[in-house]
C-alpha cells in the first residue's frame, strides 16, 4: 500500500530509505545473475561491479535527500502558518458580529494600556536627557521635621568645599526677570546658576556656548528653546546680542535644545514648568538672590533659597554620598547654631522630577491592567463560545486526520490574529487617547513630552501577544481535548453541549465581575476623595478674585520704602478702577504661589534648642489684603501703613497659632520674634485660618508682618471684582504701566484657577480611573450578556419542555436570572474581598476617605449587582418568550 503522507514527515529516516533502495537493486541484479548460471558469490560480485562505487553513491543520494527534506520542512511550516492565518481570517470574516465585538474590546483594552504606559514611560522609564542621569542627585537641607528645604549661601559653600562624594557640584536659585525693550514687558521665570551648572548636567546647547566652571561672563544669559521660539522667533542670530532683563543688558550666549527638560526645583517635587532662562551666579559663584542681585551674600547662612544638583563621583553610591552629606550637615549645625539643627539629604534626579507622579501613575497603570484583564476575559469567553459552536467542525477535521497539535495551533493562531488586529486598532485608539489625555492632564504630565516611542510599541505588542496566548490557550486546550464521537453525535441544535466550556465561561464572568467591583470601588474612592477635596473650606472667598504678581526692578526694587510706596500707589489705583471692590497684596499668594516658612520664639518662654523651635508660615501683607481675600480678623486690627520701620514692630497671627501658643488667653499684646537677632514683635490681631498650601493641607500656624515694616521687591496682588475678573485685566495692566511702563504683571489667574490647578492631579487621576471603571462595567456587561444569551440558547429545548409542561413565564425568567444572581454574588463577594487589599496603595492619594471606605465598596457592589441583572434580563426575557410548540417538535 502506498503511504501518501510519508513524504511530508520531517522525521523520515533518510539513511534507512537509501540503504533499502540500493540493497534492493544489488539483490535483484544478483538474482538475475544467478539465473544466468553464476554462483552466489560471483553473482554478488558481478552486481557490485556493475553498480560502481557504492559508498560514494550512497553518500551522494543521502546528501540530496537530506537537503530536500530540510527545504520541504521549512516550506511546510510556512504553508501551515499561512493556512492557519488564512483560515483564521476567513473565520473572522464570516462572523462579523463576533469579530467586531472582540476587536473593539481588545482595541479598548490595549489602547488604554498603551496610552497610560506612554505616560509611565515618559515619567518613570525613559532616561532623563542628561549625560549619565543616574549619577545626578539633588542635595537638600533636611529640616528637623524631615522636610527638604533650600540652603543658605554660606552653608551651601561649606558643603561644596567639604564633600568628597561628588565629581560636580552646581547651585541654583529661582529669580523672576522682566524682559523689556521688545514689545510689552514680560516677567519670565529664570534661574541663577553656578558656572558649573551645564557641565554637571552634561548638556550641550543647541547654538552658542553655555558658561563653564569658573568662566562665566556675569552679564551672560542662556535661553531655553521654548522662550527662544516664543519671544525671539527662533532667530539663531540672537546669540551674541544683548537683551534687557530687569533693566540690565545681558548677552545671549546660548540657546538650549528642545529636549532640555529642567523643571523648578522645589522641596515637594513637581515636573511642571521650569525656568525660561539661566544667568550665572554672583560673587563666589553663588546663585543670586532676587533682591539686589549683585550683593555679596556669602556670609549669609540662613536665607534658604539655594538648591543644589551634584554628580556622584564614579564608584560612589547614592547611599554613601547620602551618609557623607548627612554627617557634614550635622557637623555644620553644631559649628553654626544659626543653621538650626538641620542635617542634609540626597534625592535622586528621577524622584526630584517625577517622584510625586509615581504613585498616581502606578494607580492608573493598575487600573488599566484590570481593564485589559476584563477585556481578555471577554474575548476568551467569546472564543470559548465560538469553539464550542465549532466543536462538530473541529471533530470532523480530526476525523479527517488533523492532529490535536495542529488544531490547537490553529485556534491559537486565530486568537493571535485577533489580538494583533486588536493591537493595531488599539494603537490608533492609543494615539487618539494620548492626545485626549494631554488635553485634560495637569501641567506636570503635559510637560513630559509623552510620545508613542518604541518602548511603548513593544509594550503594546507584548500586551497583544500575551492577551492572544492568554485567551487563546483555553479554547485550544478545550477543543483539542474534546472527544470525537460525542461531538459528532450531538445534534446540530446542541452543537456545544460542552459543560466544561460553559463552566470556564462562568468562571471568566465571575472574575470579570470581581475585577469590575475592584475598579468601580477604586473609582468611587477617588471620586469621593476628589469631592471632599473640592468641598474643603480653604478659608478664602474665591468668588471673582483675580490674582497677579509684580516683580519690581531698578531703583524701586532697591529700597524697602520705595517698594512699599509703589505697592500702596498701585493698590490705590486698583481700588479706583470701576468694577474693583477690594484689593490687597501679600508677598506670597496662598494656594497658587510661593510659600515662606519660619521658626519663631515666644516672649516669656525658655528659648528652645536649635531645631526645636515652633515653626509656621511667614507672610508679609499690605493693609486690605485680609478683607480682599475674605479672611476675617477675629480679634484686634489689620496692619496699617502707620506701622512703620520707626514704630513698634507688629504682627498678626492666625487662630491656629493663637490656639497653639495661648490656648487660654487672648494673644493680643503678646510678643514673638523670628530669631534671637531680630526684635520682638507685638501681636495686634488674630485672623481666621486659611489653607495656604492648598486644599489638601490643613491650616498651619501663620505669622503676618506688615509690608511697611519688612518688604520684598515682589508682591502678589489680589483684586476682588464685581464682574468677570478677566475683563479687568487690560485696565489693571494700564494702571501698572501708568506707574512704571517697564513693569509687567505676571501669573494673571483667578483664585478659582489656582485651586483648580492645585487639585488638577487628583482630578486627573479620579477622572481617568472613573473612565476606566466605566469601560470595565461596559465590558463586563458585554461579557455577562454574551454568556447569558448563549446559555439561554443552550437551554432552549429544556425551557420549551418545561413550558410545555406548564411552567409559568415568571419561573422561566427566574431560572435564568438565578444563574446571573449566582455569578454576580460570587463575583461581587470575591471583588469585595480583594478590594481593600488592592486599594491600599491608593491610601496616600486619598483625601477624607480610607481605602476601605464602606460607602464606596457598597456603591461598587450595588453597581455590579444592578448591571449584572440588567445584562441578564434581556436574555431572560427572550427565554420567557420561547414558544414551546415550535422547539419541542424540531
Amino acid at each position, binding site marked *: *500500500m*502506498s*503511504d*501518501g503522507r*510519508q*513524504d511530508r514527515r520531517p522525521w523520515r529516516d533518510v539513511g534507512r*530509505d537509501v540503504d*533499502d*533502495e*540500493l540493497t*534492493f*537493486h544489488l*539483490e*535483484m*541484479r544478483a538474482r538475475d545473475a544467478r539465473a544466468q548460471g553464476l554462483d552466489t558469490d560471483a553473482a554478488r560480485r558481478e552486481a557490485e561491479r*556493475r*553498480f*560502481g*562505487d*557504492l559508498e560514494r*553513491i550512497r553518500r*551522494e*543520494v543521502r546528501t*540530496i*535527500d537530506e*537537503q*530536500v527534506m530540510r527545504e520541504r520542512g521549512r516550506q511546510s511550516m510556512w504553508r501551515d502558518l499561512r493556512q492557519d492565518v488564512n483560515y483564521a481570517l476567513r473565520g473572522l470574516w464570516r462572523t462579523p458580529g463576533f469579530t467586531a465585538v472582540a476587536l473593539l474590546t481588545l482595541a479598548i483594552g490595549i489602547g488604554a494600556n498603551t496610552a497610560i504606559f506612554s505616560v509611565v514611560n515618559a515619567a518613570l522609564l525613559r532616561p532623563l536627557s542628561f549625560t549619565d542621569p543616574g549619577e545626578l542627585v539633588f542635595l537638600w537641607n533636611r529640616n528637623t521635621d524631615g522636610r527638604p528645604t533650600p540652603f543658605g549661601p554660606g552653608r551651601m559653600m561649606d558643603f561644596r568645599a567639604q564633600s568628597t562624594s561628588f565629581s560636580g557640584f552646581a547651585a541654583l536659585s529661582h529669580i523672576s526677570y522682566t524682559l523689556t525693550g521688545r514689545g510689552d514687558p514680560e516677567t519670565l521665570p529664570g534661574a541663577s546658576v553656578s558656572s558649573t551648572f551645564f557641565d554637571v548636567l552634561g548638556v550641550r546647547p543647541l547654538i552658542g556656548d553655555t558658561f563653564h566652571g569658573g568662566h562665566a561672563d556675569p552679564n551672560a544669559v542662556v535661553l531655553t528653546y521654548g522662550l527662544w521660539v516664543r519671544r525671539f522667533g527662533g532667530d539663531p542670530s540672537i546669540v551674541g546680542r544683548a537683551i534687557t532683563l530687569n533693566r540690565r543688558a545681558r548677552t545671549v550666549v546660548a540657546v538650549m535644545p528642545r529636549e532640555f527638560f529642567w523643571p523648578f526645583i522645589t522641596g515637594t517635587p513637581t515636573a511642571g514648568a521650569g525656568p525660561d532662562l539661566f544667568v550665572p551666579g554672583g560673587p563666589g559663584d553663588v546663585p543670586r538672590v532676587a533682591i539686589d542681585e549683585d550683593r555679596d551674600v556669602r556670609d549669609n547662612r540662613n536665607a534658604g533659597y539655594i538648591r543644589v544638583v551634584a554628580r556622584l563621583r564614579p564608584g560612589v553610591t547614592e547611599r554613601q554620598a547620602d551618609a557623607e552629606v548627612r554627617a557634614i550637615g550635622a557637623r555644620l549645625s553644631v559649628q553654626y547654631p544659626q543653621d538650626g539643627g538641620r542635617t542634609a539629604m540626597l534625592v535622586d534626579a528621577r524622584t526630584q522630577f517625577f517622584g510625586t507622579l509615581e504613585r498616581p501613575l502606578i494607580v492608573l497603570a493598575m487600573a488599566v491592567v484590570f481593564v485589559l484583564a476584563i477585556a481578555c476575559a471577554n474575548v476568551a469567553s467569546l472564543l470559548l463560545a465560538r469553539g464550542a459552536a465549532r466543536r462538530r467542525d473541529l471533530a470532523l477535521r480530526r476525523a479527517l486526520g488533523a492532529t490535536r497539535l495542529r488544531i490547537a495551533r490553529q485556534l491559537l493562531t486565530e486568537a493571535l490574529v485577533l489580538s494583533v488586529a486588536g493591537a493595531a486598532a488599539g494603537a490608533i485608539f492609543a494615539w487618539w487617547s494620548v492626545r485626549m489625555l494631554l488635553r485634560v492632564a495637569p501641567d506636570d504630565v503635559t510637560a513630559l513630552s509623552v510620545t508613542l516611542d518604541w518602548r511603548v510599541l513593544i509594550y503594546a505588542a507584548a500586551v497583544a501577544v500575551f492577551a492572544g496566548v492568554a485567551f487563546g490557550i483555553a479554547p485550544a486546550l478545550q477543543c483539542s481535548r474534546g472527544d470525537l464521537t460525542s461531538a459528532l453525535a450531538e445534534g446540530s441544535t446542541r452543537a456545544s453541549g460542552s459543560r466544561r466550556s460553559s463552566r470556564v465561561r462562568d468562571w471568566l464572568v465571575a472574575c470579570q465581575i470581581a475585577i469590575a467591583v475592584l475598579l468601580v470601588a477604586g473609582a468611587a474612592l477617588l471620586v469621593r476623595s476628589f469631592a471632599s477635596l473640592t468641598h474643603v473650606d480653604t478659608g478664602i472667598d474665591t468668588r471673582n478674585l483675580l490674582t497677579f504678581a509684580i516683580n519690581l526692578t531698578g531703583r524701586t526694587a532697591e529700597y524697602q520704602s520705595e517698594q512699599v510706596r509703589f505697592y500702596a500707589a498701585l493698590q490705590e489705583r486698583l481700588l479706583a478702577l470701576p468694577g474693583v471692590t477690594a484689593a490687597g497684596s501679600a508677598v506670597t499668594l496662598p494656594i497658587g504661589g510661593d510659600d515662606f516658612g519660619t521658626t519663631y520664639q515666644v516672649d516669656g518662654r525658655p528659648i528652645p534648642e536649635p531645631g526645636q523651635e515652633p515653626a509656621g508660615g511667614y507672610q508679609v501683607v499690605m493693609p486690605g489684603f485680609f478683607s480682599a481675600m475674605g479672611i476675617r480678623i477675629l480679634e484686634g486690627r489689620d496692619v496699617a501703613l502707620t506701622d512703620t520701620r520707626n514704630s513698634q514692630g507688629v504682627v498678626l497671627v492666625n487662630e491656629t497659632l493663637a490656639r497653639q501658643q495661648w490656648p487660654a488667653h487672648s494673644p493680643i499684646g503678646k510678643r514673638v520674634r523670628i530669631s534671637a537677632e531680630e526684635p520682638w514683635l507685638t501681636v495686634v490681631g488674630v485672623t481666621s485660618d486659611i489653607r495656604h498650601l492648598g486644599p489638601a493641607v490643613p491650616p498651619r500656624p501663620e505669622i503676618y508682618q506688615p509690608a511697611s515694616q519688612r518688604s520684598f521687591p515682589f508682591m502678589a496682588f489680589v483684586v476682588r471684582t464685581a464682574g468677570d475678573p478677566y475683563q479687568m485685566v487690560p485696565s489693571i495692566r494700564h494702571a501698572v504701566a501708568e506707574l512704571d511702563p517697564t513693569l509687567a504683571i505676571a501669573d494673571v489667574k483667578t483664585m478659582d484657577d489656582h485651586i483648580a490647578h492645585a487639585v488638577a492631579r487628583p482630578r486627573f487621576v479620579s477622572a481617568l480611573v472613573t473612565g476606566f471603571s466605566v469601560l470595565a462595567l461596559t465590558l463586563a456587561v458585554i461579557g455577562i450578556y454574551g454568556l447569558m444569551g448563549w446559555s439561554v440558547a443552550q437551554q432552549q429545548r429544556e425551557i420549551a419542555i418545561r413550558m410545555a409542561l406548564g411552567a409559568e413565564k415568571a419561573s422561566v425568567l427566574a431560572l435564568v436570572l438565578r444563574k446571573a444572581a449566582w455569578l454576580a454574588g460570587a463575583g461581587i463577594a470575591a471583588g469585595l474581598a480583594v478590594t481593600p487589599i488592592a486599594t491600599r496603595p491608593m491610601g496616600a492619594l486619598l483625601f477624607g476617605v480610607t481605602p476601605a471606605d464602606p460607602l464606596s465598596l457598597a456603591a461598587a457592589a450595588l453597581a455590579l449587582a444592578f448591571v449584572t441583572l440588567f445584562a441578564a434580563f434581556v436574555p431572560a426575557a427572550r427565554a420567557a418568550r420561547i414558544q414551546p410548540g415550535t422547539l419541542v417538535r424540531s
Partner: protein
Amino acid sequence: MSDRTSVDLLQGTLTALILKALSWGPLHGYGIARWIEQATGDELLVEEGSLYPALHRLEARRLITSHWTKSDTNRRVRSYTLTEDGRAQLRAELSRWGRFSAAVTRAFDARKTRTT
C-alpha cells in the same frame, strides 16, 4: 578515457532516459536500469549506481515522485512515478534531442559531401 567520455555523455541523456522509462508507468530503480540496459543495448549505463543520484535529483525537482511499496518477497521497494511536470520535461527533452541529433547528423553528412 573512453569510459569518461561515455559517462559525460550519459549525464546529459540519463535524465531523458529515466523520464522515458517512467513514461509507461511506475518503476523501481532496478526496473529503470533494466529498461535502459535493454533499450540501449547495454551501451550507456556503465555504472548502474549513478542512476540513483539522478533519480533523487529528479525527485527534488518534482519531475518524478516516489512511494514505497512491498515486493512479492515482502521487501520495501521504492517506486517512481512521472509527474505532470516530468511529462512536460520529457517532451521538451525529446524535441531538443530530435533537433540536436538532426543537427549533428546534418553536420556529419555535410562534412562527407564537402570531402567528395
